[in-house]
Each structure stands twice: as structure tokens, then as C-alpha cells.
């Protein structure tokens, strides 16, 4: 018997020494610099957007997240809600596309996930964006404790891996007072993944209706934001917001645990 206790003591000794991240929202070197999380449009000085470069960019994207528009003023729109982070566009046009490893990506409106680059207007925050940010901070509804129900509406289970990782000892989301509950009736927040397959449509609606008011719905991953690579076809609905109203969109394929936490925090205005 003594032998066993020795073993256990030894295991505890080496176990949790450095596993937990002290503050997951602080960017530190636990995220690799080449980790693909969010695409931004950051042109080099000599980059010129014209029909040729625009078309190359548009065609490089398997999910049609990049659109090129040319009415007098050439513009590139990049929809991070559709992006599956394949990195194709960066290969095709490294002068304009940069892929960052940041995770504070969650947005309250679907449109906020769209980045735009144009040759004429300098690229900075607009008045409207600041206004939205202000509005986000105003609507405080929930208090300190938050119960989350995760619903898989046909995802590939990539997002589930990351949501499960939130509960592991390294990220340990419960220390922030956030718990995953077993029933939508106990939940404040629905965390929905997947392109909303048609076969899950009814179940998702029922779960939404069973959640007590006030409730928040968070769409997790490119599929939930827009349908992702699956888009809108005979078997999918092309995004959660086609079935239930969505409050926060977290892009990524899949979003890393920090990005999920940031999204949840955006949802309850802890930030």
C-alpha cells in the first residue's frame, strides 16, 4: 500500500507545475507566432490593388470569403466569418494578406467580421465602429455567473475539441465562474457550432425555445458564422443566424480556446 502512495505523491510533484496558463487572455508565447487565427488586410507600401491582383485574391479563396469590387474605387472585402484559415490567399498575395495569431476576434454583429481594403481611404477605425463598440459595452444583462449549453448543429467536431479544451486543467474555464450545463433550460448562453445542418434545424429551434430569457446565442467557428466551407446547400442552412438570432460571432476554423473565452467575455461584457 505504501508503494502506491509514494507513486501518487511523485505524480502530484511533477504534475501541475507549469500546465495552467496564468492569464489566457494575455498574449504570451504559448501561442505560436505562425498560428493561423485571423486574416487582416495589411498592405505593403508597394501593393497596388487592380483588377488582376483583385481577381487572383478572389479566386484563391475556397469559401468565397474574399470578394473584389471595382466601381471607380477598387475594394477588397474579406469576410472572416467565412474564412477557414487555409492560408491560400496569403500564398497568392503576401503583399496584402497577413495572418495574425490574435484571438480577441469575437464580434457582436455579423458585419463586423468583414474587413475592407480600398486604395483611396486610409485603413483605420471609422466612427461607426467606435459607436458599435460603445453600444456593446452598454447592454449589461448578466451578472457574475454564466451557464453555457453547447449545441453541435452539424459541426465537423473541430470546434468541439477546442470547447472541450476549455474544460481541461490548462484553460480551466470554471475558475471564471463559467460552467457548461447539461440542459438548455439551465443555460444563459447557447454556444452553437456547425453550419446548422437541416437535420439539426428542429432540434436547435427547440433548444433555443427551451432556454429561459434573457439568453445569448454565440455562433462558434466559420461554419456557424456563415456556413463556412459547407456554405448553403440542400443539407445545410448556411449559418446559425438563419435559424435563431445570434448575438456574438466567433470566427476561426476552429477558434482556439482563448478566442472562445474572449467571445464569451464579449458576450457578457466582462471586457
Amino acid at each position, binding site marked *: 500500500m505504501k508503494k502506491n502512495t509514494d507513486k501518487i505523491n511523485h505524480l502530484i510533484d511533477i504534475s501541475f507545475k507549469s500546465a495552467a496558463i496564468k492569464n489566457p487572455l494575455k498574449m504570451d508565447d504559448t501561442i505560436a507566432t505562425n498560428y493561423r487565427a485571423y486574416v487582416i488586410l495589411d498592405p505593403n507600401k508597394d501593393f497596388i490593388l487592380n483588377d488582376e491582383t483583385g481577381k487572383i485574391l478572389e479566386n484563391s479563396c475556397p469559401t468565397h470569403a474574399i470578394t473584389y469590387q471595382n466601381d471607380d474605387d477598387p475594394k477588397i472585402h474579406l469576410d472572416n466569418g467565412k474564412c477557414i*484559415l487555409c492560408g491560400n490567399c496569403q500564398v497568392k498575395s503576401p503583399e496584402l494578406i497577413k495572418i495574425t495569431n490574435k484571438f480577441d476576434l469575437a464580434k457582436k454583429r455579423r458585419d463586423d467580421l468583414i474587413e475592407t481594403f480600398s486604395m483611396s481611404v486610409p485603413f483605420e477605425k471609422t466612427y461607426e465602429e467606435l459607436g458599435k463598440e460603445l453600444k456593446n459595452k452598454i447592454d449589461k444583462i448578466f451578472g457574475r455567473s454564466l451557464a453555457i449549453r453547447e449545441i453541435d448543429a452539424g459541426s465537423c467536431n473541430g470546434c468541439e*475539441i477546442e470547447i472541450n479544451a476549455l474544460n481541461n486543467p490548462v484553460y480551466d474555464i470554471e475558475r471564471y465562474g463559467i460552467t457548461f450545463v447539461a440542459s438548455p433550460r439551465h443555460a444563459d448562453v447557447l454556444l452553437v457550432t456547425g453550419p446548422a445542418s437541416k437535420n439539426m434545424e428542429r432540434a436547435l429551434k427547440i433548444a433555443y425555445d427551451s432556454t429561459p430569457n434573457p439568453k445569448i446565442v454565440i455562433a462558434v467557428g466559420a461554419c456557424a458564422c456563415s456556413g463556412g466551407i459547407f456554405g448553403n446547400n440542400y*443539407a445545410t442552412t448556411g449559418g446559425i443566424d438563419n435559424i435563431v438570432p445570434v448575438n456574438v460571432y466567433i470566427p476561426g476554423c476552429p477558434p482556439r480556446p482563448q478566442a472562445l473565452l474572449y467571445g464569451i467575455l464579449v458576450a457578457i461584457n466582462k471586457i
Partner: protein
Amino acid sequence: MSHKEIIKKYYSKLEKFDSDIKKLENNNELHLSLNDPNKLHELCKFLKKDLDLRLMTIICCDEQKLNHGFKIRHVFGSDVDDFFLFVILSIDESHPYFPSIYDVFPSSILYEREIKDMFGLMAQENPNIKPLILHDFPNDVFPLRKDFKLNDDVKRNLKQFEFTPIIGEGVCEIPVGPIHAGIIEPGHFRFSVLGETIINLETRLGYAHKGIEKLAESMPINDVVFLSERISGDESVANSIAFCQAVEKIAQLTIPQKAEQLRLLFAELERIYNHFGTLGGILTDVGFPYGASRLNILKEQIMQLNERLSGSRILFGVNQIGGVKTNVTDEMLIDIHFVLDDTFQIFEKILDLLKSNSSVMDRLRNTGIIEKQMARDLGLVGISSRCIGIETDTRQTHPYGYYPSINLKQKTPRETMEHQVELQKRIGDVLSRFMSRVDDLRQSKDIIGSITALKSDGLSKSIDDELTPYSSALGYAESHRGETLHWIMIGEHNSIFRYKIRTASFSNWPIIEYAVLDNIVADFPVINKSFDFSYSGNDL
């Protein structure tokens, strides 16, 4: 033996059965066209009894555009030789029936139901005609036919799915799902219980059906790699390898040795992080969170390693047709070895702890037992079959990529003996599956450990010529769940004409209905987790 010799061996045997069958060779595939569909049944009996082949999948393809009607390919494989047999039937739309072979290969029931859902061809005499993948679909719409367009709006008729009623005094029904209490994928389980004991289970899947096979037909071939990664997020490497290898087989492209090595590295890393996660999940389900937490830390360490290597925590975007995208330098290789040495040192200690913990062992032992004959009949692959002593491993029977070049350290006679004794204890319960996964993990570590130097012949080759229209090939890989098959037929201008995916989950799911019988409801989660099937990989 080379592929040619193996095919010759099998063909000479087949000639004895029937001398006038047309044949076609394609690497390790032998294609036989069967003029008379009624001969299929007899042929299957012959294949099972005399050639010891196993049904791997049934592929249907709408070739009406080419005036071939519907082609149904029954794919058989050997567990001894690197050999696949395709038996091809032609079916005309005017008479949409084909013979069922469920009494020879019971696993065919699933494939035949799938074909009925997606193509509207009926397998005569198949006892189960319930829809499999599509829910509430009209009877005359078949998504994988060529006249159906990807974005067609289908009006669903909402009606209750009829579960087989289990009637008797004291029998209760427990419906579970599609949304589960844990963070897992969607699926419905209908238990019939007598007291605590499960006397019947009927599963209904298909909730995660996203139309992947149809979608692939409308995408450029290079983008389908991304789609194949998202068949099941945790099998991304295995599925994309199977897809890329099928295309490379069609193009007759040999990819650089370094690319083969990197594919192997990523595939084994994927296996390791998933097995850690599954073992942790089993411990969570038996109420031993300490062990689960420890294993989840190990899983996280491997996922962080993945991130450093490839820029994605679950290894998305690693493969491309003709090679790999992600480079691994020699320093990174040292990092891999270092992390694995570290994690496996801790893993062995956790394992010692678990083996000495009687409350864990009691829950695992004799829970969810499957029988060997059942496993054979249903054509189980991967861990589910290895836990009862049926050795199916695509890496060994159909060696692909860099696996044939791997030299593992020879076991000493004593170690072999000990291993044999250990295998005798595998009775198909949760503990057997637990230990099979442990074996798999150790093997993966040895495989990665044997790669000490990377070759330097480039990351990928490109395919310059247009692929021959309507040529096809079977790609295969061993995911952490088992054998994964991807069959591709190329269309005009490098498009995909038909993409058939059969993941290990699809052939393994039916066993759950038998494994839980005579167990208590509270043991269902741990039995389910010990198999660790993918819902998305099944529903596509």
C-alpha cells in the same frame, strides 16, 4: 509480392469460379464487371469462403451521362495481401433494383440503405429499409443523382421517425439526443430498459449530414483537400492523406520522400493526441477526474506541439495534392522527440496508477463486451476490432506512404510472449479497448521515434497534365479510429465526378447497439466513449 503477382494469384482463383468475367487492373485494384447481377450472391459466397475477403464498402455512382446507367461497385479487401477487388454491377434506371448480399456480408445492410437514400436504388430482400442519413426527405428526391443540384431546395415532410417498438411488462423507453448532456456531436439513442438493464438500443444518426459528397462535385479539386479535412475535425490528417493519395494514384504521381515522412509524422501525432483525449474521456465517464485531467494535459501538450509545427492545433492545412504544405525543420523534429519523450514518461506513470486503482479497473472490466463473430460479421475496423483480437491495420495490410520504410525495433522473444499473453486477455470489453489504445499510442511513439533524419527532396510536386476524365482510384489511410477509404472518380477538366468517403466510424457504428446489451444505462457513456466514433464522419 508485387501488386501484379498478387492480382494474378487472385484472378486465377476467380477464373475457376467464372471464366468469362471482364477484368481491369489499377495498381492494387482488380475490377470485375459482372454482366448478370444475379450471380453476385454466389460470387460473394465464394469470395468469403474461398478467398477470405471482407466487404469494405459499396460505392454507387450515377453514370447515366456516360450511358452506363448506375454503377454499383462492391469493394472487397484482403487482410493478408495488399489487394482490393471491385465487383461492378450496371443498373438501369427503369429497373432500380440490385441484389442484397446481407446474408453473406451482414455489414452490407448499411451501405445498401445509404444507396437507397442517396440514389433511390433498392437492394432486394434487404430487411431494413429505414432511411439512414436523410431525415424527413421526400421519397422521390435523391441528392447524389446528377440531375439533383447542390442548392436545390427540398421540402421536408415532418413526420415522426418510427423506432422499432419493444413491448413487454415493465419495459421503458429512454430517448436520448440529438443534443447530449456532454459536449459531443449530435445523434439520437433510443434505449429500451427493463429496470436498469438495457434490453434494446436503436441509434438514429444523420444529424450532422452536410452533403460533403455532393459538395465535392462542385469544387475545384485542390479545394476538396480542405473539405476532406473537415469530414471529421479530429481525423483531418488521415482523411486528407486518403484523399490526396487517391488523386496521386490517378495521376500516377510519386511524391517526394520528405513529404511522405511529414505526412507520417502528422498522422501519428494526430493519433497520439486523439488517443490521449479518448483515454481521458473514458476516465471522466467512470468518475475518475484526476486521471482524466492528467491525460487531458498531455493531449493539450501535443496540440500545442501541433500548433508550433503547423499553425493549427488540430493539424488543418497540412496536406495538399502532391505533397505537404508545412515544412518541418530538423530543430522541429528534435522538438517533437523531446515533447513525446516527456509526455510518454508521464503517461506510463499515469498508466501504472490506473492499473493499481481497483475502482477504475472494476468499471472497465467486463463492460460492453462484443463478440468476435459479431465483429467479423459487421466488418469492424481499427480499435473496435483489435480489442477482440482481429488484427486489421491498413498501415500493415495495405502499406502506404512512408510506412513500408519504417524499421521498428524487433521485439525480444520474451516481449513477444508477454504481448501474446496480454492479447489473450482482450475479450472485447472497455478495458480491452483501453489497452488497445495504449498499444497504439506506444507504437505511434516508436514510429515517430524511428524517424531521426528528414530527407531533403522537397515538399511537393505539382500535377501538370489534366487528369484523365472518368478514371478512378481508391485512397486509404489508417486514422485513429481505423481504416479510412476514399474513392474518387475524376470528371472533365479536373473536376470531381464522384467522391465516396467511408470512414471507420461508418462501418463501426452498428456495434454499439450490441455492445450495450445487458449493461446498465449508466455504463452507456463509457461504452460509447471507449469506441469513440465520429458522428460527423458517419453522417458526412
